[in-house]
């Protein structure tokens, strides 16, 4: 019994790690190919069939490259930053359910847990910005911090609205309470959530913290080799976490034909569709300016999220 319990922990951890090391690569490869074809290119074609092994080759290259710590950097902060950026997304992945039974850690308030853990990642970016001892990095790091502060609020309010509609803070419970009407009822909240998620991931059009035309590469300017690769991996792991979270909160998770057996497939397919949408945004839209980015959060997203909250509260009280 106790051995079985220990074995269960080990197997679940291994499954989370396997998902963490494969799904971001899948999203990354999808980004290579989707972006390429949207821009009339082929994308990577050399490593394996249609460049399927490109990201593995990139990883092997990164681990063999020299990691330079600048002489002016705060060494320990600089070296720890990639780990602080990476690990939170792994932990977040552990509590996101693929189906009612396919969840590594079904903690009671998993919605709150995911939101709390994913915001830790930005501390890694802030540490990178501060620790690099570089003016570009410092500006980029502060932009990243300011961006998280502004966009965390709409995302939390939108998530609270879903929790109200479902009457639970458990992600599996939320999918259990979901009905197709939510697509309409929670639509403003879904828009707020997706927009704020893209901003938290610092993806185009909200990538002012790493705006290459203004501040080189922001907090990542001084990074090279494996530490840089860890930051890249954390970005794609972030897309995976946010896409799956959106699928679970707003798209009914594992609901679909034969959901008893195909449940996890539906969650992954819905998540992949959201990930493609996030990639599409990068191809379609230019970067917004830093002041526009801040104003958008406070004058558009926040009132919209509060309106959704009122709509949800009234809906729950009136229709039960």
């Amino acid at each position: 019994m106790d051995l079985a319990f220990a074995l269960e922990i080990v197997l679940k951890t291994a499954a989370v790690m396997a998902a963490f090391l494969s799904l971001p690569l899948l999203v990354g490869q999808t980004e290579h190919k989707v972006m390429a074809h949207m821009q009339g290119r082929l994308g990577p074609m050399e490593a394996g069939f249609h460049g399927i092994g490109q990201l593995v080759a990139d990883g092997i290259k990164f681990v063999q490259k020299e990691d330079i710590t600048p002489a002016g950097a705060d060494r320990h902060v600089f070296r720890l930053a990639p780990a602080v950026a990476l690990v939170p997304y792994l932990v977040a992945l552990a509590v996101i359910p693929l189906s009612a039974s396919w969840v590594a850690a079904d903690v009671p308030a998993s919605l709150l847990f995911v939101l709390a853990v994913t915001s830790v990642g930005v501390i890694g970016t802030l540490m990178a910005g501060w620790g690099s001892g570089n003016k570009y990095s410092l500006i980029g790091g502060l932009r990243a911090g300011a961006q998280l502060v502004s966009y965390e609020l709409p995302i939390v309010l939108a998530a609270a609205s879903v929790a109200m509609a479902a009457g639970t803070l458990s992600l599996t419970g939320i999918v259990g309470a979901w009905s197709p009407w939510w697509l309409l009822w929670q639509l403003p909240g879904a828009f707020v959530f997706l927009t704020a998620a893209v901003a938290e991931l610092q993806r185009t059009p909200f990538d002012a913290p790493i705006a290459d035309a203004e501040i080189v590469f922001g907090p990542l300017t001084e990074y090279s080799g494996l530490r840089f690769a860890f930051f890249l991996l954390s970005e794609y792991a972030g897309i995976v976490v946010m896409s799956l979270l959106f699928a679970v909160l707003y798209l009914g998770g594992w609901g679909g034909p034969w959901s008893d057996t195909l449940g996890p497939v539906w969650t992954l397919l819905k998540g992949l569709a959201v990930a493609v949408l996030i990639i599409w945004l990068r191809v379609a839209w230019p970067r917004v300016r830093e002041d526009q980015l801040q104003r958008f959060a406070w004058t558009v997203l926040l009132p919209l999220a509060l309106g959704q909250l009122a709509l949800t509260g009234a809906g729950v009280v009136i229709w039960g």
Partner: protein
Amino acid sequence: MPCRSSVPWTASIVRLPDMGDYAVVLAVVLAGVLLVVAGYGARRLLAPSDPTTAKQTTYESGVDPIGEGWMQGSVRYLVFAFLYVVFAVDAVYLFPWALVLRTELGPASLVEMAIFIGVLVIGLGHAWRRGLLRWW
């Protein structure tokens, strides 16, 4: 105490159904630390290390760096940080409220929450009207 030592340490976890999931979370955190350590270890074995003065210079678009990296500057996002603290405290109250909305407290709590958030919205509107929600 021989009778206690015959019980494995994991037995105390098994008895609490909720804690099993947190044990998985803890194991995943440890696995993440292990991943980073293994990655840095592999890098140490595989990657060259040949630091030179030029390589370790702070990058400032190719010219020699001027002064320190930690410069003084105008933090323009300060007001947003204050507003965030106000609304983040509000969000703390939202989640417990989300769970009692379907009980007999529902309609009364809805009105109370509307007043509470209404006050915050008036504050936000005031900050907006006074021009704090712009680049300044």
